């Protein structure tokens, strides 16, 4: 790779061994990609704080946070001192909600270690947003901004909705980016890779958040890691809001590896279909109609069987304040069934707003819990005795059965709240 004088100096150790190891990782990674150079970034989303037992045990065994960070964040088997970050860096979701540690089964030793790592990372400059949706709580990149983000649902939102530029980075590459303010100039950083390759022609109205989730799951299955452009066969697409695009992107990056999409007339690089395609012909065209919608719904629900529900989990990706409001209104005056638990996940700062608005009280009075920082698939924490869970996220329905061995029903938020209050799944595709 071609390096600038600054980059060569970092790679040669001018700025210390931590920066040198970060550059070493970026150079190995850039070569693996076939990248020709690095690009400067001032916006990183990564994972540093140690909220998993394996990392805690590693840090304790090796004797320091730096040892854990050297291995897990920089792929360095030699322990180096990790210096303060050079790029603005947001901490993504973590392994539990420290405010609900006892009910999540998190022990005191783990909590003590986590607190230590939290203080350590904030000291280095990590913004402790603790969410998979940093774009909800103060990290909103501008169009064209070069970023180094991980978390597939955030990456696809960053590229597609905001028009900023990132690949689906990992823990190691984003950590190296935080320390060096560099990331390989490759993939979605370049104009030519951002154009649509495939066209999805919608032949059915897509309106509810549930519908956008189903469509996302279908699109991911069809285009895998290619770039789709969505267009309405007749008429125009009703403009989806943040929650709908959050669910759509999360689903498309779970069933497939979609990192970038266009919605003609909605997303910033798709004023027209021709612009989205870069004036090229699409490689493939898919028609999404009622039959595709129903078949996709059945596949998302393929693990489901029992109609007895012990757990309802909402907030994948982390709920918006609008979604919390909706859930609170659906719950008002009702009670969560004795045989069922209801957990809703949102970023900490949005939970503070929900507290202020009185939504937390409504949810708690009904017997539900509003949590932050994590979700069940990430934490692998579910209420004891759960056999079947109800979800309004196609992404969570994709991952949770494999992660914790439960059946999952997917449906609308209203159907999930109904399941929480009756202990029964009565949902069906409308």
């Amino acid at each position, binding site marked *: 790779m071609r390096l600038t004088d600054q980059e060569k100096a970092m790679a040669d150790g001018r700025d210390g061994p931590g920066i040198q190891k970060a550059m070493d*990782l970026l150079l*190995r*990674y850039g070569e*693996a*990609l*076939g990248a020709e150079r690095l690009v400067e970034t001032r916006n990183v989303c990564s*994972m540093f704080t140690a909220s998993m037992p*394996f990392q805690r045990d*590693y840090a304790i065994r090796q004797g320091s946070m730096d040892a854990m960070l050297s*291995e*897990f964040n920089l*792929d360095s088997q030699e322990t180096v001192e990790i210096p303060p970050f050079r790029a603005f860096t947001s901490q993504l979701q973590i392994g539990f909600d420290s405010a609900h540690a006892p009910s999540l089964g998190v022990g005191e030793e783990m909590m003590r270690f986590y607190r230590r790592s939290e203080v350590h990372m904030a000291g280095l400059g990590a913004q402790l947003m603790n969410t998979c949706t940093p774009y909800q709580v103060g990290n909103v990149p501008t169009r064209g901004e070069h970023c180094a983000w*991980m*978390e*597939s649902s955030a*990456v696809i939102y960053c590229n597609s909705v905001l028009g900023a530029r990132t*690949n*689906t*980075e*990992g*823990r*190691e*590459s984003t950590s190296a980016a935080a320390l060096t303010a560099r990331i390989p100039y*490759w*993939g979605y950083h370049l104009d030519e890779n951002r154009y649509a390759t495939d066209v999805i022609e919608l032949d059915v109205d897509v309106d509810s958040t549930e519908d956008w989730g189903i469509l996302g799951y279908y699109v*991911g299955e069809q285009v*895998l*890691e290619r770039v789709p452009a969505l267009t309405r066969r007749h008429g125009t697409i009703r403009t989806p809001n943040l929650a709908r695009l959050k669910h759509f992107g999360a689903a498309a*990056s*779970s069933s*497939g*590896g979609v990192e970038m999409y266009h919605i003609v007339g909605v997303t910033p690089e798709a004023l027209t279909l021709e612009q989205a395609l870069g004036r090229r012909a699409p490689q493939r065209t898919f028609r999404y109609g009622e039959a595709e919608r129903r078949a996709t719904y059945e596949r998302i629900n*393929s*693990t489901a069987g029992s109609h007895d529900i012990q757990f309802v989990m909402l907030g994948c990706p982390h709920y918006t304040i609008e979604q919390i409001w909706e859930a609170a209104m659906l719950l008002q005056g009702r009670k969560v069934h004795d045989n069922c638990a209801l957990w809703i996940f949102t970023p900490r700062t949005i939970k503070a707003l929900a507290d202020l608005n009185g939504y937390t009280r409504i949810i708690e009075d009904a017997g539900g819990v509003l949590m932050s920082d994590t979700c069940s*698939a990430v934490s692998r924490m579910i209420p004891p005795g759960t056999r079947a869970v109800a979800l309004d996220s196609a992404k969570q329905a*994709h*991952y949770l*059965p*494999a*992660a914790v061995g439960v059946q999952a029903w997917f449906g609308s938020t209203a159907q999930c709240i109904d399941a929480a209050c009756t202990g029964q799944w009565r949902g069906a595709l409308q």
Partner: protein
Amino acid sequence: MSGAIASDNTAARQTLTLRGRKVVGGVAEGEALVTRQHISGWGGVDPRTGTIIETRHELRGVSFAGKVLVFPGAKGSSGWSSTFHTARLMGMAPAAMLYNETTAKAALGAVVTHAPTVTDFDLDPLQHIETGDWVRVDADRGVVEVVRRAT
């Protein structure tokens, strides 16, 4: 010649050579584990055993530990690299990896797994390698030698 099928008379077994681009250097050999389905790292693999756990994946329940993993590419969560990184620390990494589609997930995953890895082949490994074949990967030279499983 690249891609030519040669006959090894002494063993009476077919060998085949594929050529590609080095992703991660090194030399390793082992039994092939081939899937035509993309692999999900985090949420699709249990790094403690190297076992594929994704619901409806054709390799569900199968471990890639010590195998030459042949797959089209990576999909899903950005925890791909962390999962393979952890599998290496657990001693459950693949011996080598061969994939077709370069993505940030697959490339970074290969780097932190420290497994010799090759991509951009002259012949599609998914068409020419079967599970159970013996595969020798010289990633530094970009050469993959395949000895067919005795049938």
